């Protein structure tokens, strides 16, 4: 029993633990002065020495005309390299607190069957890249990092660490939007930070690999996947999930009863060698 729960939810549990731990580390730094990880997801300091900064925020600031300091440049570099290795959107599924809200909305969508009354989603998943472009244009003309001023992600993680204010309304808006308006609406369509990490994630080494001969076409993976367009090869070919939009959340690996999906390191050589033998 416990074993099967572990098998079905091991990554989900691990993700919730990391998401909550990161927030707890920030909170204890602010409240009790235990400085393991100070600051917040925009910019922080690990063990009082290693700077970490949100590369998308730093880019917006640069466009807005800020003089970028060595600290945040180094911080953005470290974060970028880290996510280039482990998967860009690992941030989304393993760190970002908004993920818990949208995952809940998505879970309820499946449980109550909202997906059945709204099969087709009336929006493109490329909106996020447009939002990135617009954010740079506005940052340039307004002289301020544009997305950082409206970012629900920042409102929520700052809210958890420094006090929420009306941030609960933001949480509710995202939740209702994802539940009733658009499936995977915020994280999968609009969020430019997710879009930014999708772009970085193209280089990622850790990938989900599909082993087509094992696949029984049950489609559980596609149902549970928040970015199911990345699983286009399922049932067809034994190739890794190469799209940067994959969040490496591992839900597909967990729900697969046939051992047809697994995490693996991307073979750096191109072509057939990426195929699972």
């Amino acid at each position, binding site marked *: 029993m416990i074993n099967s729960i572990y098998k079905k939810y091991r990554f989900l549990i691990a993700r919730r633990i990391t998401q909550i731990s990161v927030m707890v580390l920030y909170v204890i*730094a*602010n409240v009790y*002065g235990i400085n393991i990880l*100070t*600051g*917040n997801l*925009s*910019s*922080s*300091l690990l063990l009082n020495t290693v*700077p970490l*900064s*949100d590369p998308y*925020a*730093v880019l917006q*600031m640069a466009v*807005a*005309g*800020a*003089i*970028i*300091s060595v*600290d*945040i440049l180094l*911080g953005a570099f470290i974060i970028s390299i880290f996510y280039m290795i482990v998967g860009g959107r690992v941030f989304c599924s393993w760190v970002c607190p908004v993920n818990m809200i949208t995952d809940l909305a998505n879970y309820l969508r499946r449980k109550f069957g909202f997906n059945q009354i709204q099969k087709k989603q009336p929006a493109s998943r490329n909106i996020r890249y*447009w*939002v990135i*472009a*617009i954010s740079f*244009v*506005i940052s340039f*003309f*307004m*002289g*301020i*990092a*544009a997305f*950082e*001023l*409206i*970012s629900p992600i*920042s*409102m929520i993680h*700052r*809210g958890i*660490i*420094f*006090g*929420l*204010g*009306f*941030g609960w*309304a*933001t949480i509710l808006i995202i939740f209702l939007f994802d539940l009733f308006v658009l499936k995977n609406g915020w994280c999968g369509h609009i969020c430019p930070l997710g879009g930014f990490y999708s772009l970085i994630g193209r280089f990622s080494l850790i990938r989900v690999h599909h082993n087509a001969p094992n696949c029984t076409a049950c489609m559980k993976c596609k149902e549970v996947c928040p970015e199911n367009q990345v699983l286009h090869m399922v049932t067809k070919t034994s190739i890794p999930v190469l799209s940067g939009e994959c969040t490496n959340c591992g839900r597909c690996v967990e729900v697969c009863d046939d051992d047809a999906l697994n995490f693996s390191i991307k073979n750096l050589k191109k072509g057939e060698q990426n195929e699972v033998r």
Partner: protein
Amino acid sequence: MSNINPHEDKEKKNMKTPANQPISERRKFFLTIARATGLAILGGLTWSAYVDEVKATSLILRPPGALSEDAFLANCIKCGMCVEACPFDTLKLAKPGDNKPLGTPFFEPRDIPCYMCIDIPCVPVCPTNALDIKSVQNKEKKLDINKAQMGVAVIDDSSCIAFWGIQCDACYRACPLLGEAINIEYTKNERTGKHAFLKPVVYPDVCTGCGLCEKACVTEKAAIFVLPREVALGRAGDYYIKGWDKKDEKRLENATSKTTTTQISKDSAVDSLNSSSDMEDLLK
């Protein structure tokens, strides 16, 4: 724009498609592009309108060493390190509902003023230099909180009871730069003829804007309060110089002048006064 071209008008008529007929691939392509562009403009304009609105909040007090408001907003990454460093919980990050640029640090002196720590813990932790350490250093590169310019105290003399003639020097006593940033001025109370006014006076050059005076003020709503320097202070400009002050005369070195050209500028001063037509021009 495109309607001017008759060629295109003709084409438009040909392209008229009833709702039940499928549209051509080419048209579909253009429609998609037009829709995406339109939505991008719609989103972009709404977004910038919001950004412009929040940026316009000028009545906000920043931590010591903050760059000028525009530069500060561009440079602050909203990480909250200064807030965590502040031992008095003076600094807060703007949350939704505060009606201030989201996530930026600020303080409200009537609530908790800046206690002007000599080691200024909030400034060196700033990763982006939006809090500029150089602006709070003295000539020996040592931290000097007295150089901070967070704002300037302003007195509403209609509600300050010292200006009524009631003795109160709460703000003067609370000021960390007592006698320098706030001083007490003695004047005669003509109403009674035998009492004195002991009026507080703020010296904006010295005042750091810490807000200890605002916190100490005894009136129901503070009669002395801190405003951003950009809001509270005027600027005399280059035309007026304190001729008796050697230091102020130095400003002449950087003085600028602007030459305006009007109808009468084409003649010399004397000619323009003597020439009747130009005088009529002036009276028009």
